[in-house]
């Protein structure tokens, strides 16, 4: 009864669809006539319409509307097929997911997802007149690339110091715009001069991004950092004390809008001896502000601490236990934390609460060293016995 989609003649009409859509209103973006009007028939055309979250292909002017109205979605799907155009000509890809309906004389296909600008869509119509000689062309639709934002770049890499311990555990790479998942480990290289260090990082299918995908956490392979683990026993640590290295981030890395970075980024650093010591709060210095000012309270640490955690795990509380609102900044290569309150300090007692999972750059936390005790020694760092929080009190006068 219904003839299958024609394959003999494929006339490709590329339709560029421009403009960004705003709001929920349905807009017709493109209209292509596929058959001119003949005596007694209406012109058949295909329209592409979009709302803010859906794309709809509509076929107008089909004859036999009375019969089409009685067809179910499965039967309608045999009249109109939409596929992604394959890169190689001979591949037949599955049809697009979506729903079919026949409403007000229009055959409609709503795609499951809005159209993507990275592919072209091939639309084929079965002969609506059940006439095998009536071959209709295949149409190609594609979307205009959206206006691009300026290319993203690396805005910072932490730790910011240019001297890092041999057992450095992680880097944080910050970008100016959201990035694409799935290519991080191809784009980041650890170089010693022109020699690339082989597989120095922990490569995870679930890459470690923040929710906006503007910060990437890069872990040095823990099997290479930890002493006595086979990978390190086989090859030694990826970085060794006394040498200089480059962390290189390729400009090929694409942002979420699929543009490459503005430039390659290089962080040059020298490697110092391994750090197996926990941060030592007894060596920390506190700088107290004066009452009735918004001068910062500062904590100067005995070493560089984890940039991300410093921004999260320190909380200032007032005498009643209420959180003091304000802005924290990190200075001097993450060895100094400075907190400026929104409102002036009162003449009273305050405290800084610090979660003891706060780590230094080698993964030694306030609660435990990265590599813990010998088996035959009593366990002094039992996590269960270590408080989850330490408190630094200060008096504002």
């Amino acid at each position: 009864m219904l003839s299958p989609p024609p394959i003999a003649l494929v006339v490709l009409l590329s339709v560029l669809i421009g403009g960004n859509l705003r709001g929920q209103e349905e807009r017709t973006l493109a209209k292509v006539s596929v058959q001119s009007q003949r005596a007694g028939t209406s012109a058949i055309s295909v329209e592409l319409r979009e709302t803010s979250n859906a794309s709809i292909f509509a076929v107008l002017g089909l004859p036999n509307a009375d019969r089409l109205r009685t067809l179910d979605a499965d039967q309608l799907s045999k009249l109109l097929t939409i596929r992604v155009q394959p890169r190689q000509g001979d591949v037949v890809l599955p049809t697009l997911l979506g729903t079919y309906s026949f409403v007000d004389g229009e055959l409609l296909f709503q795609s499951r997802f809005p159209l993507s600008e990275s592919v072209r869509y091939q639309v084929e119509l079965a002969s609506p007149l059940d006439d095998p000689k009536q071959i209709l062309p295949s149409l190609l639709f594609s979307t205009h690339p959206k206006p691009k934002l300026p290319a993203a770049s690396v805005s910072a890499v932490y730790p910011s110091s240019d001297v890092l311990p041999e057992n450095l555990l992680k880097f944080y790479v910050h970008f100016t715009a959201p990035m694409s998942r799935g290519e991080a480990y191809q784009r980041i290289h650890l170089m010693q001069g022109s020699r690339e260090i082989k597989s120095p990082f922990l490569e995870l299918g679930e890459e470690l991004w923040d929710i906006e995908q503007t910060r990437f956490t890069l872990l040095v392979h823990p099997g290479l950092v930890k002493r006595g683990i086979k990978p390190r026993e086989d090859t030694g640590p990826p970085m060794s004390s006394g040498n200089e290295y480059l962390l290189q981030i390729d400009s090929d890395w694409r942002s979420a809008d699929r543009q490459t970075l503005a430039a390659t980024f290089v962080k040059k650093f020298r490697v110092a001896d391994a750090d197996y010591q926990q941060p030592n709060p007894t060596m920390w210095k506190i700088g107290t502000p004066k009452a009735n000012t918004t001068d910062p309270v500062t904590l100067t640490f005995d070493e560089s601490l984890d940039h991300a955690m410093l921004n999260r795990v320190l909380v200032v509380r007032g005498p009643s236990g209420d959180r003091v609102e304000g802005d924290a900044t990190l200075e001097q290569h993450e060895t100094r934390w400075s907190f400026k309150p929104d409102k002036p300090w009162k003449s009273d007692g305050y405290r800084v609460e610090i979660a003891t999972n706060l780590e230094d750059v080698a993964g030694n936390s306030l609660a435990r060293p990265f590599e813990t005790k010998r088996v035959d020694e009593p366990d002094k760092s039992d996590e269960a016995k270590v408080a989850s929080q330490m408190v630094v009190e200060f008096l504002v006068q």
Partner: protein
Amino acid sequence: MLRRKFSWALSLGLLIPCANLNADTGMKEGTPDIKHAGALAFAPLGVLLVGDSVSASIFAIDTGDAQAATNAASVSIEKVNEKIAAMIGSSAEETSINDMAVNPLSGNIYLSVSRGRGPSAAPVIFKADAQGALSELSLKKVKFSKAVFANAPESKEGARNPRMSAITDIQFMDGKVVIAGLSNEEFASKLRLMNYPFDGSEQSTSVEVYHGAHGKLETASPVRTFVTYENSVLAAYTCTPLVNIPISDLKPGTKTQGKTIAELGNMNQPLDMIVYKKGDQDYLLMANSARGVMKLKLSKTDIEGTKAITSRIADTAGLPYETVKDLKGVVQLDKLNAKQAVLLVSNEGRQDIRTIDLP
């Protein structure tokens, strides 16, 4: 009196939506608000567990796919990533298959997929049947339940919290969902355990692993992938040891000392594991990044009898393994039935689903 009747009517009205609640599983009907479909596993009765790193949650979805497979099949889907990309109207470059799990009841294969690579990528779950036909698992009006991590990266007071926990593996065992993952900030080695059906309870336990040389202990290394075997968790760590942890030792708020029973060696990262039986012998099959799939003979007595690796590692230390060399590029594997396994094989941007006889 009239007022009382009215309030009864109102109460009844409010109760009606609850009629959809499934008393056994705590599920309700609706559309789960999955932000990212990552790690997959099956709980009993065709319930699919989906790890969502972005919303720090585990979703349990009743797939309704509980019909027993009639006969063993050999599923093969070439270029599965390109086919899925075409169905969702995108390109293979902008589509990623995040995990694969076989429904042990039906033998159907489930794939978690991201459409797009940016922060607004859409999660999609696909099903492949015994004939290799792909379809989307619709998430509209399904029965589901959701458990949010106890210390989910809630919005910090006054600031956005960028800490997230990437879920690297989930498994169902003995009425519990066991979750491995790692934070994008602190370096910790906690396994999470949630009762299933979800009851709001969550336990976590730190698992220590012995270092080889120097007789050191380590407390912190995230588990990359794991399986359950003979009342134990066999966990592959990001720093490469394979460790045996008795399930009875996984108690909340405690530290457990796992026993290192094998090491994978250099330039190698564990990706996925299954346990199976052939004849009377149990085996562990592990996909890893550097060599072909590794196969270890397993037995409870071997594991118990293996001296924990606490001294300097020699190549012969721990359980011996062989490498199935012709299996290259395997990124996911799962048991299809008692005799076959399904593989997701990745090769220069192309991904295929293949079925093999268990080696």
